């Protein structure tokens, strides 16, 4: 195996900059991914605040500059917020950050299957990140939104299409490499005695997410390559004047871009399962059905993409068909939520920061899921398609359930990664501010879309008093949420010098807690090769493996 020769003891994060740049170690690569994702999370969050302030009053407040209108700047900021939050935060924090760091630890492997490919996938992602930063230069503003619908994206009004295409292609290369790596690792590098029914649910979630990436990304790459050739090389895939079809782009895009939301949310489900089981001191209820539900969601997720196009002119029978398939996603997700609730039955729940974030995430996901039903019901969607209701819905699930899951995961594994304990008080304060702020903001956003019919992507709207009032309430919520997020960041930075953490602070039988030092050593485990007892299970609290293994 192409693993650099590492000292047998010490910490995983080494010492020199050269070690970090030329690393093939899964933990360092994961941390690079993770830091990049957090940086872009902050940038995209600031973009989101710009959007909020622009919408707080009717009229266009953003200044026009460099020969562009204020509305153009808004459209650029909206594109940035969407694309970066989705690809750089929601996908990368899981498939890049958490998965790279945790999956080898959870399955008892020394490293991922292809360490160099892993490093390559990070650096191509880094290249895409640099290209994203280039769009900040005026004149490079991409204004086609992250969906980049043709034929608008072939119009000069949309900004540099080629830059968008290159970013997406580089990102796709990175995703494909990363997902191949994860699948191979999970399939072939499990330690002796760890079968498919003894994997952490987080690992199952990463497996499903990587499969989705592997099958879906080619479709996205195809769509943007055709866009590129259409605009620059004179082909006519999407140009209706010469026999193309604009809807083709939407089909190709959503065939990947709908399943990708499950790439984003399934690992969050995995974190919820880990945290609930650990903090309840109780095995997860219905492990097998939980794992099967993950794969069922991944499978059904590929059969639902037309619900993004319910009003786009596709035939009516297709809309009805996909209305049914979309509604069926509710069944496996419902199973998961019921199982989490059942896990709480007769548990012993410890209310610390990670657990609070998990509860918040599940409750947000419940609201988000229930408000997803009208988007799936085609008759309702005719009235609320492309309204703020949709925006509120996907901010509940992707914006908040996912971010709560990610924050829960960060708080949960923080001791293992850094070797230090964080401040529980600040973490809880951050949680309550985020929960209250997010609910204020997105509930009123949904209300505005459903009852008032405010369309999406509008910097400006008629000065109707109710609209202005609702928008200002949302801004207040957004500010409360931002303060909460800021407190979490402060907490993480401050705690790097916090008190030393024990090896297994939460007392979990899972391998990444029970068989490693804190912080993790360069060889991952105290003892190689990893061996587990026959009746071991990552959630086997009743056998006492969380206290001695």
């Amino acid at each position, binding site marked *: 195996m192409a693993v650099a020769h590492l000292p047998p003891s010490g910490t995983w994060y080494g010492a020199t900059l050269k070690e970090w740049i030329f690393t093939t170690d899964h933990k360092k690569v994961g941390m690079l991914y993770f830091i990049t994702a957090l940086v872009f999370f902050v940038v995209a969050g600031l973009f989101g605040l710009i959007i909020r302030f622009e919408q707080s009053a009717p009229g266009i407040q953003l200044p026009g500059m460099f020969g562009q209108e204020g509305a153009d700047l808004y459209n650029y900021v909206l594109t940035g917020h969407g694309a970066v939050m989705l690809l750089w935060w929601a996908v990368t924090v899981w498939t890049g950050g958490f998965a790279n760091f945790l999956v080898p630890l959870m399955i008892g492997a020394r490293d991922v299957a292809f360490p160099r490919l892993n490093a390559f996938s990070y650096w191509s992602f880094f290249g895409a990140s640099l290209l994203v930063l280039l769009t900040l230069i005026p004149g490079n503003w991409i204004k086609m939104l992250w969906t980049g*619908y043709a034929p608008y994206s072939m119009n000069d009004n949309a900004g540099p299409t080629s830059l968008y295409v290159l970013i997406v292609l580089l990102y796709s290369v990175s995703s494909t490499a990363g997902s191949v790596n994860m699948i191979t690792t999970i399939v072939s590098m499990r330690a002796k005695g760890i079968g498919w029914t003894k994997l952490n649910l987080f690992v199952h979630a990463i497996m499903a997410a990587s499969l989705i990436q592997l099958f879906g990304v080619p479709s996205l790459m195809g769509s943007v390559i055709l866009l590129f050739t259409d605009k620059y090389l004179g082909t006519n895939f999407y140009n209706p004047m010469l026999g193309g079809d604009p809807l083709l782009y939407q089909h190709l895009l959503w065939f990947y871009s709908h399943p990708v939301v499950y790439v984003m949310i399934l690992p969050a489900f995995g974190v919820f399962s880990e945290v609930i089981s650990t903090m309840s001191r109780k095995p997860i209820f219905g492990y097998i059905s939980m794992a099967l539900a993950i794969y069922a969601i991944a499978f059904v997720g590929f059969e639902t993409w037309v619900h993004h196009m319910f009003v786009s002119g596709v035939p009516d029978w297709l809309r009805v068909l996909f209305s049914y398939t979309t509604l069926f996603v509710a069944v496996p997700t419902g199973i998961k939520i019921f199982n989490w609730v059942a896990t709480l039955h007769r548990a012993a729940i410890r209310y610390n920061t990670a657990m609070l974030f998990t509860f918040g995430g599940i409750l947000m996901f419940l609201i988000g899921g229930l408000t997803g039903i*009208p988007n799936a019901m085609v008759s309702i969607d005719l009235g609320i398609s492309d309204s703020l209701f949709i925006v509120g819905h996907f901010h509940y699930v992707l914006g908040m359930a996912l971010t709560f899951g990610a924050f829960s995961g960060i708080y949960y594994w923080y001791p293992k990664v850094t070797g230090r304990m964080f401040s529980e008080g600040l973490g809880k304060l951050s949680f309550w501010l985020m929960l209250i702020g997010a609910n204020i903001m997105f509930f009123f956003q949904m209300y505005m879309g459903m009852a008032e019919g405010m369309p999406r992507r509008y910097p400006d709207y008629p000065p109707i008093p109710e609209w202005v009032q609702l928008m200002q309430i949302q801004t207040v919520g957004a500010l409360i949420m931002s303060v909460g997020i800021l407190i979490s960041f402060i907490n993480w930075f401050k705690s790097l010098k916090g008190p030393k953490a024990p090896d297994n602070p939460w007392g979990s039988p899972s391998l990444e807690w029970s068989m490693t030092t804190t912080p993790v050593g360069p060889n991952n485990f105290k003892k190689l090769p990893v061996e587990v007892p026959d009746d071991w299970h990552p959630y086997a609290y009743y056998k006492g493996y969380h206290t001695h293994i």
Partner: protein
Amino acid sequence: MRNLLLLLLLAGTAMAKEEIFAYPRAFWENSVTVWFWVAVAIYIVVAVPSIYFMVKYRYRPKENEEGAHIEGNTAIEIVWTVIPTIIVLFLGTYSFANFVKQRKAPEGSLEIKVTAFMWGWEFEYPNGKKVYTFFNQVADPEKNIYLMPDKVDDSAKAYIPAGKPIKVYCTSRDVIHSFFVHEARVTEDCVPGRITKLWFQFNKPGEYWVFCREYCGTWHSRMASVLKVVPEDEFNKWLGGDAQQPAPAEQPAQPVQQ
């Protein structure tokens, strides 16, 4: 919060009592009402037990330190797989039934053509009369702010007869737009190279916004128009009369780059 919830409930239930204000809004509201009560029921079924468990089974030193050893229960798993399946089939079928009514225009509709362009609308009536609305006609150039419908010039308003179903054929000249009338709860994209259809009917005279709901560039948010719903005799006078100002000269649409 409570008032808003009450408002939502009222919006869902009160409509059944008064006269129908617009189609296909009535069908849309049927679906929304059903969804809303199902969602509230599911929320209560999930949230109440979970909050109860959260309080009752919290960690208490020396009393409740370890969770019980329960690995699962096949019977209950089957129950909560089958029941949601039945619920989603019901919801899907209910929305299907309403969807058919929402998409099928009644006989004897007035047919108008709507052509979207960057950034405005062209309405064409059966006798060839055209109405144009451009993005700068709905905004005050001084304050850079939207005008309310009563301030918009009447030449930029599309007149619609009250109490008569309108069938709209949509298309676009350049990029994808979306024709959306909130009070009728109807949306349909205007796709270049395709003709999409929708229908609506207003029973109450008034002025209603038309918005574009598919992102189309700089002035996407100003690409609004006003539907002026008037009694039918007044509409016929407007349609047949030639006292209108001539339509402004057509702006050449931006061609898609070759």
